[in-house]
């Protein structure tokens, strides 16, 4: 710590001098950039903390209270959760949400994989994939506008069926659970393309050698898929499946746009039930309890792909 030292241009030495004479041991300072690093991460941490975590905690607290926005929240313990599971409308909403999870796994992920395999190494494959990609960047409401029109009574679909002699068609958006099924298919129409794109990237990253070797050995079609492609696509499939599950659990836009959860509460999903209880019925406590429930389920599902994601090495 001699003050006659003149070459103090390296950060650690600058810091060493400023630590004062009472620090006898010339310990290497822990980190010359500590303050600067804190400054760089602070905006992100503050924004996320104030706008995401604080509300998160408040919702968790509200879920244990009775509150309608006026006066103060009144502590009621787990009463909202008990009320929630006693409500047949909520149970129906859970079942619908499960249907969404299963349906969006089966249809968009399945067809997406099929399209990726069909276009793989195919001349003009990029162009043949295009029709599936067009709907992808539509908003949920945009998809809802198109399909509400197609599925309305005597609408485009009914007219097409009538041309094939089918007159007695169901009321697509009214009869439950058919309305949930057709909304899942509308979402599938939108989602196939992006899954196909993801699987295509996965297929392109498969090394050529084992493929060639298998081909030489006479493996083709289904055999090739089962013994080489599928095992190599497994990690990516886990990501796609995880994404699909998490996204479907949060389904809101398209249902709100097409049926508003109706008729009655027949096509409600959890996200929609939460919205209605909170912003339509002003049952803040109950709405918050549903939000907490939805979050717990989503987090459990997220673990499926988060592990994969946090350990992945590639950036954009």
């Amino acid at each position, binding site marked *: 710590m001699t003050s006659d030292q003149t070459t103090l241009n390296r950060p650690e030495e600058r810091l060493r001098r400023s630590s004062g004479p009472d620090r006898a041991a010339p310990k290497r300072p822990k980190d010359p950039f500590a303050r600067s690093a804190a400054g760089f991460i602070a905006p992100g941490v503050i924004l996320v*903390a104030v706008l995401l975590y*604080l509300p998160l905690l408040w919702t968790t607290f509200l879920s244990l209270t009775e509150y309608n*926005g006026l006066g103060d929240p009144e502590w009621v313990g787990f009463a909202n959760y008990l009320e929630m599971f006693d409500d047949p409308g909520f149970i129906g909403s859970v079942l619908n949400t499960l249907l969404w999870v299963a349906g969006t796994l089966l249809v968009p992920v399945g067809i997406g994989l099929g399209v990726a395999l069909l276009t793989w190494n195919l001349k003009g494959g990029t162009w043949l994939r295009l029709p599936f990609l067009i709907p992808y960047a539509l908003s949920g409401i945009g998809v809802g506008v198109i399909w509400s029109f197609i599925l309305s009574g005597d*609408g485009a679909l009914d007219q097409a069926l009538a041309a094939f002699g089918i007159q007695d068609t169901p009321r697509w958006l009214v009869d439950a659970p058919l309305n949930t099924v057709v909304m899942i298919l509308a979402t599938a129409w939108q989602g196939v393309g992006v899954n196909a794109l993801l699987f295509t990237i996965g297929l392109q990253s498969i090394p050529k050698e084992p493929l060639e070797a298998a081909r030489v050995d006479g493996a083709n079609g289904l055999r090739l898929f089962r013994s080489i492609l599928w095992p190599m696509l497994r990690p990516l499939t886990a990501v796609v499946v995880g994404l699909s599950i998490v996204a479907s659990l949060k389904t809101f836009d398209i249902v709100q746009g097409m049926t508003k959860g109706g008729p009655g509460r027949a096509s409600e999903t959890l996200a929609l039930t939460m*919205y209605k209880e909170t*912003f339509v019925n002003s049952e803040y406590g109950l709405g918050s309890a549903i939000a907490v429930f939805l979050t717990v389920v989503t987090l459990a599902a*997220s673990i499926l792909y988060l592990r994969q994601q946090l350990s992945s090495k590639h950036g954009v």
Partner: protein
Amino acid sequence: MPFKHTARIVRTAVLVVLGLFWLLPVYLLLVNAAKSPETFTTKESWIPTDFSLLANMAEAVRLSGLAESAASTLLYAVVSPAIAVVVGAAAGFAIVALRLRHGFAWFVVVFGGTVFPLQMILLPLFDAYSRVGLFDSRTGMIIVYTAISIPFSAFVMRNFFTGIAHSVFEAAVLDGASTWRIFARVYLPMASSALVAVFILQATFIWNDFLLGLVLSQSDTVRPIVTSLAGMQSTYGGAQMSTVLAGGLLVSLPTVVLFLFTQKFFARGLALGQY
């Protein structure tokens, strides 16, 4: 060889048929959005009659303040992701280049903001926004869109910076550059492709947002465009369907075009776990 040839033809044929099937809703949208309200009928959806698409679009804009919504939404979709990519990059820079203590823990804190559903923050935001005067304000919308874009941005930028050798940073320090200068002049320019990718993904997400707009805004000037479209659908969906369809087309075009031209960015970003 002939077998392989046949397989190719079959594959192409299946894709063409399936692809055409996939385009049917797009066809129906275009045909019916182009029918003037006088000729439009719900009974004849498959046959084109006339071309009043532009008139319908203009009418849609007039009916529901879509022009003001579009201007606001453009503002949100540009400003929020722009701030978020820089804030996210700064976080990544702190963790990777400046070797922030407990960097990984801080990273998990920031990234963790993206794993729970929006439903968890809606009510407190609505409540707090109403109290502090941010409800139904453009500032309020920009702030919330920025905050929800940060976790993914920090995630991608941290990954990206991990790929830059730490000696780059050390060399710049020896040259006497300040950390801010190193960030702005060395790290940000190197990350431009990743910054653009994150920006495009988030801008699309914000343009297509419905829920936050529904809860946090009210007036035509502040309300995001998709939320306005939903309002237009429930108000005019019965009487003026072709106008609503034209509005839907108008609202959807920017993101669809953007997406088709930047597919690769999307695919990479999505593989990393957005939505």
